[in-house]
């Protein structure tokens, strides 16, 4: 067990290393003097000197990396030359909004997927199962940006539900109710994609598990359907669900960009698109590092959870 976790930890560090190099190297993909591109209109000898000192741009590239990663470990992602704000602070201000959306969307997705998958798996090929399978297959082919546009079209434009359209975001502390309603459509959008994935994975695993002999055994002992489902079948069937949830939740940070962009919700995606449009390269770099790092950590966290649900994993 310890060996397995240690092995995972080593892989984690290796991947984080690659991710950091990738994020670092982004700025050097640009032709020409990075200082000029980072500073943009603020380029003058004084700001260039400040930037050179901050990023160590006079040094060879591998030393620049060490300077940069050292700053990163001290929580310093640089200070934007466009907005004159520390990059980390900008990111930390945006991230709670994303977390709120993700949490709401996951409550909806799991809340719908688990009971429906159980009903579907209990009677495979029943009308309900066929409908749900076909429906989820179609939804699988609808990209998030279409879901959100159609939701806005139906809910806020046609039905006229207040506080759901673009630019209606208010912070939670200001007005919790309005905050929730402004995040409703984006959360549903994220929930749709997650639901489809969770439903399909759990349904197929549950169907398999329910044919196992220990389920027949439990049935013959007279244990109730409900108890069999939750106590006997759900746990072995939930391993790949957790696996896909880990990958999916990481991906939600990224796919949240689109809904934030459309509805002007000041989350991390909105900031990234804004940073791209204003050529705020340090902020882009910071967001890329932060998001990919988080994705890796979330995946690792789920590996860890799976290990406790199914300790046999470590024997492979």
């Amino acid at each position: 067990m310890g060996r397995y976790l240690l092995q995972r930890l080593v892989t984690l560090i290796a991947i984080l290393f690659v991710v950091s190099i990738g994020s670092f190297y982004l700025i050097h993909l640009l032709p020409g003097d990075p200082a000029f591109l980072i500073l943009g209109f603020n380029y003058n000898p004084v700001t260039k000197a400040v930037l050179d000192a901050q990023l160590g741009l006079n040094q060879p590239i591998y030393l620049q990396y060490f300077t940069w990663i050292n700053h990163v470990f001290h929580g310093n992602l640089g200070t934007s030359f466009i907005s004159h704000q520390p990059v980390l602070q900008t990111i930390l201000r945006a991230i709670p909004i994303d977390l709120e959306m993700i949490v709401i969307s996951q409550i909806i997705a799991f809340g719908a997927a688990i009971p429906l998958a159980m009903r579907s798996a209990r009677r495979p090929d029943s009308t309900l199962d066929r409908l749900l399978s076909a429906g989820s297959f179609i939804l699988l082919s609808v990209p998030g940006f279409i879901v959100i546009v159609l939701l806005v079209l139906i809910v806020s434009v046609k039905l006229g539900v207040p506080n759901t359209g673009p630019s209606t975001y208010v912070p939670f502390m200001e007005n919790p109710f309005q905050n929730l309603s402004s995040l409703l459509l984006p959360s549903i959008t994220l929930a749709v994609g997650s639901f489809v994935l969770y439903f399909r994975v759990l349904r197929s695993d549950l169907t398999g598990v329910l044919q196992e002999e220990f389920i027949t055994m439990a049935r013959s002992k007279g244990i109730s359907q409900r108890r069999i489902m939750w106590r006997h079948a759900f746990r072995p069937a939930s391993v790949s669900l957790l696996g896909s949830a880990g990958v999916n939740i990481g991906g939600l940070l990224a796919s949240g960009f689109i809904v934030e962009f459309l509805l002007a919700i000041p989350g991390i995606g909105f900031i990234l698109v804004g940073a791209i449009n204003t050529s705020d390269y340090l902020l882009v770099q910071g967001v890329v590092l932060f998001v990919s790092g988080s994705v890796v950590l979330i995946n690792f966290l789920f590996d860890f959870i799976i290990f406790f649900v199914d300790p046999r994993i470590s024997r492979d």
Partner: protein
Amino acid sequence: MKPEKKKPLGILFWVCVGWIILNVLLAVFASFLPLIDPLYQNYNAVNSGPSLHHLLGTDDLGRDILSRIIFGSRVSIFVSFGAMAIAFLVGVPTSMLASLRRGRFDKILTTVMYSFLAFPAIIATISVLSFWEPRSLSKVTIIVGIFSIPLVYRVIRTASLAVAGREYVTAAKVQGATDRRILIREILPNITPILVSFLLIGIAAVVALEGALAFLGLSINPPTPSWGNMINEARTVLDVNPWLVIFPSIALVLFILSLNFIGDRLRNHFDVAEVKI
């Protein structure tokens, strides 16, 4: 285990195949079709709904939506086919070789590929595209292609690992066949079903990704139409002309749905369990 009868492909499968072929043909021959110029702005018919003259209506600048959808499909098809061609040309040979050779070569390559898998595709493409100006269609294609390599690598490696352990591969090795011959004559034919169905699903995924990039304004620049940027432009006039969002969305979803369906059916037909969407 007794050999089971193969599941029939069904009529819906052929409908989907037909739809994809139709889309590709329309995209290729768009310039020769009697279509209204997708950039022509008819100010006498702004935001008009579907009519005989404009079958799917016009947009806020009086441009014909049907024509824009057909010309817009070129972008999606070019990017998705091109990106998958890059990803498969690099990913397939390397993953097959890794699964055959194993050892250190496989270990290092696999670790590197899995590390790149940690970057969410959309973030990777967005960030590289934002740094690599000016944007163009071929750049989008190349970047999406490169970032799809690890995914192709993982799927194909898993599939060909299962084949590489079979007796007939060992037999070929014992007979002194070269790696090249084993890869082409023994392994490739046996992973072809997975290859094809994953290729289709991959194309579908790239169509969705390009749509999202165009939606964020990071793919091809207007006024050249693409499904994604049509939906993006339409969102400002949602209340006036909902058709503008609905038609390109339908085109995009039907295209992706058909590809996914064909891929899924092929997989069931050949009873391949290794790949999951």
